[in-house]
């Protein structure tokens, strides 16, 4: 009964979001598109960091990788943008496999720092190979107004990340990922190949940002190293996932929606207070409810992790 109710609610929300562009203003569509993007990013970060406990401080690297791959495929080879977006996801996945090998053998803060470094390296590389990427001048894509189709594509990305998280969390694969977070030494002693599990989780967590990056590149029509590799994007997705509840299905969704809306409202009224408020939220969440809103409810009311 509960399950049927939840499914009906989800179907209703999806239907409302699907017909939304027919009624909304241009600003409304862009705002929801942004929320979709943050859901995809926070949800993806949750898969590696919320489940295995390997905190990635450079997850925007996959977003940037997707943005540049997708952007180049569109600008230089003339691929249609949906295909280029899939190319962006594939490139981000390959990057995750390549760097996961060395990085996922590092534990605790060393992994976080290695990921931070990776992002800086990528940004430097993109700036350096000017001939291909346009360097610091950025990369312009051919003009195309595809905001509404991209709205749907980004929505699908967010839905896929959320549904994927649900499938992982309700599987024994998901349990094994969590044993890495809980106690990696004990997990190994139980015969769990923790490295392979981490690598698969890392790969999965790179696909969403890769897609979102490529879609964002198409949507904005112009990208530059500073706009697609900012540390602030990583921080924002982390805060959203933490606020909503890491290690849950709907935590990143809730965090992305609430914090984005709050940010927009505050941004519009008090531009200078905005970073201050965001910082205050980080401190408050970490101190008062390190498990986030849903994590707290889950513990208190003994709800399943799949909320």
């Amino acid at each position: 009964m509960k399950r049927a109710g939840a499914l009906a609610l989800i179907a209703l929300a999806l239907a409302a979001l699907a017909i939304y562009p027919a009624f909304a203003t241009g600003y409304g569509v862009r705002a929801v598109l942004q929320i979709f993007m943050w859901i995809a990013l926070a949800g993806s970060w949750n898969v590696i960091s919320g489940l295995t406990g390997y905190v990635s401080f450079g997850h925007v690297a996959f977003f940037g990788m997707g943005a540049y791959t997708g952007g180049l495929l569109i600008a230089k080879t003339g691929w249609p943008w949906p295909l280029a977006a899939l190319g962006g996801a594939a490139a981000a996945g390959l990057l995750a496999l390549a760097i996961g090998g060395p990085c996922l053998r590092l534990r605790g803060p060393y992994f976080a720092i290695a990921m931070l470094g990776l992002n800086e390296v990528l940004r430097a590389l993109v700036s350096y190979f000017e001939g291909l990427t346009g360097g610091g001048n950025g990369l312009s894509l051919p003009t195309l107004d595809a905001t509404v189709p991209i709205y749907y594509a980004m929505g699908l990305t967010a839905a896929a990340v959320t549904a994927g998280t649900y499938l992982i969390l309700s599987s024994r694969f998901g349990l094994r990922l969590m044993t890495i977070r809980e106690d990696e030494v004990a997990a190994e002693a139980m015969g769990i190949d923790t490295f392979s599990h981490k690598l698969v989780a890392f790969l999965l967590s790179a696909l969403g940002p890769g897609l979102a990056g490529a879609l964002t590149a198409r949507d904005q029509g112009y990208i530059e190293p500073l706009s697609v590799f900012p540390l602030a994007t990583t921080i924002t997705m982390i805060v959203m996932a933490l606020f909503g509840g890491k290690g849950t299905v709907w935590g990143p969704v809730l965090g992305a929606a609430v914090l984005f809306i709050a940010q927009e409202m505050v941004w519009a009224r008090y531009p200078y207070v905005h970073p201050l408020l965001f910082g205050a939220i980080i401190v408050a969440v970490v101190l008062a409810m390190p498990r986030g809103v849903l994590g707290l409810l889950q513990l208190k009311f003994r709800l399943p992790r799949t909320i």
Partner: protein
Amino acid sequence: MAGAALEIVDLRKSFGGVTAVNGVSLALEPGRIYGLIGPNGSGKTTLFNCITGVERRDSGRILLDGARIDGLKPYQIAQRGVGRTFQVIRVFPELTALENLLVVTRGDHRAAQARALELLRFVKLEGLRDEYAGNLSYGQQKLVEFVRMLMREPSLVLLDEPAAGVNRTLLNDLLDAVRQLRDTGKTVLLVEHDMKVVMGLCETVFVLDHGEKIAEGPPGVIQADERVIEAYFGR
């Protein structure tokens, strides 16, 4: 020795200038309970860690049922049939008791769940199956860790201080469980400080001191061994 469940040959391991295990050789016959004792710092836990692959040995060989396992990764050794519990409890606190047991299972979910519930019943914890392991008492966590290790049906069971911090009733249950393991053909090696437990349970006892095996034999003989008394109480 042919047919040994576990054979260790001239094992050495040092940390910087400290030699933790210095040329230890021993062999365990299948289906028996062995004790490993020695003063603090005598190399017991390091020996455990070498067997389970948590530490890499410097030299020497470790054979499980005749096949080399030294050099393998911890998860590979576990998959070959070595189960262990830890000196400090290592349950997965934010997984439920049942989930703690389910993590290593594959294939048929229902059969796995039935097996896990059977083991929880075995230690009288089936009523707490959906409780987070971290919320259980110390003794209950110890039992969860114990049966979790059994989910893989290990042929060799390593127990690091199973009696530490456990009350009498629970201890008797645990000791019964260990004997039952032995009766089903598993080989057990336990590190323990509680001499009553060691003497009552083990058929053969190895004594380590400063990383070397100084004695080996039945509990009664070991208790009277002068070198052992000296290692524990000094001259």
